[in-house]
């Protein structure tokens, strides 16, 4: 049994307070089922997310990191998610170059009305991360 739970990947999700966090709330209140692997961190805007958060998550041993914000054009602060998009795109590519599998760093747009999409995104991310196995990147002997 204990082995079973150990295999479950742990995901840290940075969700923007205006869209994705509300989307996650909606998924909950409408009783959507999605894997309980995600630890949510509420951020004021996806533009608040520093690539440092992502690496910190991975170095703490999370198996995957999800960054989620408002759809382009819907940012509460007008342009926060456009900036986040640039930053995420660059970070994803660069971390791949370092040797971190692309599946570990994911991004999505989920609006406050997309409870279904949120459940789906989490299911997909968990599936992806499960497929590549646990994160041993920052273990003493590396991977």
């Amino acid at each position, binding site marked *: 049994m204990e082995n079973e739970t150990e295999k479950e990947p742990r995901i840290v999700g940075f969700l923007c307070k205006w869209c994705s966090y509300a989307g996650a709330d909606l998924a909950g209140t409408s009783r959507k089922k999605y894997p309980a692997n995600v630890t949510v961190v509420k951020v004021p805007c996806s533009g608040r997310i520093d690539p440092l958060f992502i690496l910190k998550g991975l170095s703490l041993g999370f198996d995957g990191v999800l960054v989620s914000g408002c759809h382009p054009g819907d940012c509460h602060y007008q342009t926060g998610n456009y900036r986040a998009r640039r930053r*995420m795109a660059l970070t994803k590519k660069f971390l791949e170059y370092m040797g971190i599998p692309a599946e570990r760093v994911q991004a999505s747009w989920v609006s406050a009305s997309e409870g279904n999409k949120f459940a789906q995104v989490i299911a997909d991310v968990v599936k992806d991360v499960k497929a590549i196995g646990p994160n041993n990147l920052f273990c003493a002997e590396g991977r």
Partner: protein
Amino acid sequence: MEKELRKQANRLLEEGTVDCIIGHAQGSLKFTTTPLITGDKTEISNLIISPFMHNNLANYLIRRHGKTGIVAKGCDSRSIVSLIQDKQVSRDAVVIIGVPCSGLVDMAKLESLTGKVRDQIEAVTVAGDKVSVKLNGKKKEYPARQVLFDHCLGCEFPTPQEYDCLIGEPVAAINDTELSSKKIADIKKMAPQDRWAFWQKQFSRCIRCYACREVCPACFCERCFAEESQPHWISPVPQWQDNLVFQVIRTIHVAGRCSDCGECERVCPQHIPLRLLSREMYDLIDEMFHYKSGMDKNAPPLMTAYEMVEAEGLIR
């Protein structure tokens, strides 16, 4: 050229256009230079132009008050423009004395090529794609690519892009990225876990002296995340995990400001190939956003700009 440089610097100080000149002076060792920051006209005669003026002087403009005259090579001028874009320096507060640069000599390469140490070499001059070295009274020529720094070989803009006066004539770019791109291509060929192992090995040597950060004109934060204690992002103890996080994040943080001047790699006492990171970032930005740092002082900084549609397919 030095004469012209000194004349210009003297004039700027005399007219009172600037209250300080930042340039290069002969260093304490042969074939080294040291930054010269002075408002004293008598010191102007120490200004030199040499293939060893390694320092990216743009670094000394950060948090400077008053009007400054600065000697700038191609890469320095791009760093200055980046600082202007990021509103760290006002264009009106600097007088850029542009110096076209035909590449900087990597002493380590030269020493291993000639088999002589620094003090046995008499003179070094760079002309076009040849570097002539004087040894035992005899002149010997080497192809530039054997002697210059990798980043100088890959330099696209050796002539300053932004200047108030230019000393000498513009020089043509060598633009030979082969050496740099080969090293990067070799890394890309590795499997992800081998790549990670490679970086682990490199960063286990890091002693976290922060020389890379201190020398970098793109690293102008007053407080660095590396020293934040609330939250405590990375441990100050040099372990490879934290060293790697530090350098990767530093590379991402300076994205769009880094002009690939290669100073971080040059000053690294542990010879960690940091340009494998910065050059890859530089190329990535060019490929994804068609942006080159420090080319247009009126352009918004890379990371604050956006297009309506970009980075397609990376986000769910």
